[in-house]
């Protein structure tokens, strides 16, 4: 569904997207601080600057459509509808977290909204989404699956295997490349020899490349491609150019980055410009920002007060209880 239009409905969709962009941005900014202060353990990978891709793509999905995410998956989870309480409780390793404190940042998942998990293995989500698309096709439920991956994952063999498989089987799969130009600590130009447009052409996969920092552009392209996919056209690939504002992981000193990189376009500013052009008052945006910040602070307070992850419960969930065999 396009985000812009005339009348209240058009603005309402764009305002919702603006709010989602803010939710993701503010969540990650808070995580950055919580991590620096030692409250969030482990590794976290922030997608600050890449929010418009999650929000734009998700505007074309229904609640039962599925997605497989990456190690930089907070935006995907939140845009698909993961509750803030469960999200922060997971990042703070609480029993009330979406994964009961066993997955953390790299594995946030919410099956109730089709979010099949962030993933610590680069490219692994490609095959999980392809399999989910196969299930949708066989179950004839009209749903589609989405695989998000970065441009660093273009070097993984699964891209070929899954691209071939999805094209061959005409699976309802949207591949979304979040092209932030970095393959961990190396520029993608030093890692990848091929062009995704030509790759898609070779596999017979519909392809679009758009400005991934403009949520309206992402939403329009996602609506077009998901329409193709839902009408039985097989897989499609959407490349969204964007920028990784932070390091590969929090704590990354980024000595490999140059100080004269051009300033990235801020997806929130871009969305704000669309709203201004549509005649939405700045005051409205300020109200949204205040509400978002207060909801995030409430979620953090709740997470801090929640009980820690439990070892006994974790041990009991290695297998589905009813099927455990005889053991002493």
């Amino acid at each position: 569904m396009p985000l812009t239009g005339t009348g209240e409905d058009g603005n309402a969709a764009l305002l919702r997207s603006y709010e989602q962009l803010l939710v993701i941005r503010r969540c990650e900014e808070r995580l950055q601080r919580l991590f620096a202060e030692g409250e969030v353990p482990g590794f976290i990978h922030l997608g600050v600057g890449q929010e418009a891709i999650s929000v734009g793509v998700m505007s074309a999905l229904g609640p039962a459509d599925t997605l497989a995410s990456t190690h930089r998956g907070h935006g995907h989870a939140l845009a698909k509808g993961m509750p803030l309480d469960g999200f922060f409780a997971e990042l703070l390793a609480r029993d009330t977290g979406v994964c009961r404190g066993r997955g953390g940042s790299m594995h946030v998942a919410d099956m109730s909204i089709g979010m099949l998990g962030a993933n610590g293995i680069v490219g692994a989500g490609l095959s999980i989404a392809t399999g989910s698309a196969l299930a949708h096709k066989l179950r004839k439920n009209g749903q589609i699956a989405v695989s998000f991956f970065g441009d660093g994952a273009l070097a993984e063999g699964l891209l070929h295997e899954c691209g071939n498989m999805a094209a061959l089987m005409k699976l309802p799969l949207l591949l979304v490349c979040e092209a932030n130009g970095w393959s961990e600590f190396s520029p993608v130009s030093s890692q990848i020899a091929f062009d995704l447009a030509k790759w898609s052409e070779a596999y017979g996969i519909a392809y679009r490349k758009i400005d991934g920092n403009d949520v309206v552009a992402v939403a329009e392209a996602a609506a077009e491609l998901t329409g193709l996919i839902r009408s039985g056209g097989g897989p499609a690939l959407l490349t969204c150019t964007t920028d990784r504002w932070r390091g590969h992981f929090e704590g990354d000193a980024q000595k490999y980055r140059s100080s004269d990189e051009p300033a990235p376009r801020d997806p929130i500013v871009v969305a704000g410009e669309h709203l201004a052009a549509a005649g939405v008052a700045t005051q409205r945006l300020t109200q949204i920002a205040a509400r978002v910040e207060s909801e995030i602070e409430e979620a953090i307070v709740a997470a801090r007060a929640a009980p820690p992850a439990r070892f006994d419960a974790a041990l009991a969930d290695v297998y589905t209880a009813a099927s455990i065999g005889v053991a002493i």
Partner: protein
Amino acid sequence: MAQLRYGAAIGQALADAMQDDPTVVIMGEDIAGAGGSFGITRGLLDKFGPERVIDTPISEAAIAGMAVGAAMSGLKPVLEIMFMDFTTLAMDAMVNQAAKARFMFGAQVSVPMVLRTPHGGGLSAGPQHSQCLEAWFAHVPGLKVVCPSGPANAYGLLRAAIADPDPVVFVEHKGLYAMRDEVPEVLAPIPLGQAAVVRSGEHVTVVAYGAAVALAMQTAEQLASESISVEVIDLQTIQPWDEAAVLASLAKTGHLVVVHEAVEAFGVGAEIAARMAELGFSYLKGPIVRVGAPFMPVPFSAELEATYRPSVSRLIAAVRKALGKE
């Protein structure tokens, strides 16, 4: 009693599972039109159609990952990996995805998939088409590992594996596919995690699984003529394995031998020996002895391979050693 071949029993289990549950689909390389490299899935395409009997390209990593995604999205996929050696290409999907999903997502989801694959030598198939790698999978929390020894438990265990909510690696022995044996008139699932005492004995317990069970039975038969009474336990499920059954037998006999075709070092036998040394030390009247393959790849030469694989004579020697009758 009816008779069935091991391979046909597996095919029957697949057909019955698909008949009973429309969410069961099978996928793999050349399994549909060609009926599988070993003919196990022959006839299923005609019966269930190409949507549920899916020929895939030679893409083990993708097939296995897809099985995980499909299992998380409402299907029960059973994938065939043509040789167990090729599971190396599917390891991320099995180890990092299938095995972990339930745990790391806080029990929001189970991954009801089965990976069927044949292991074992005896066909001069060489180092990359003969390996027994079940211990790798048994070492990964979240996976179950099953290894049937004959037609009856091949059927029953596969039905249980497909019905199981967790990911199961179902290891077949390619040397057993043609084996014909009696099966019950009414075929039924055999619960995972339960061993079977397939021969009762008094003096020594031999634990085996898969093709090694037949070796153990032959060994028991031969030793019976020397008045050595061997109890043979068919493990059936390697993970979770039936510690209680092995311990009960050890309590009775006081002596334990474990035999498998896989490399002995760091293998299933090592785990069983260690656990029984911990749990059953007071029952032990002699050393626990393992019989497995030497620490080398499986050789191509039929003569070398025959020396490499466990044999009745090696198992007899091991039983004597366990009994202090060398």
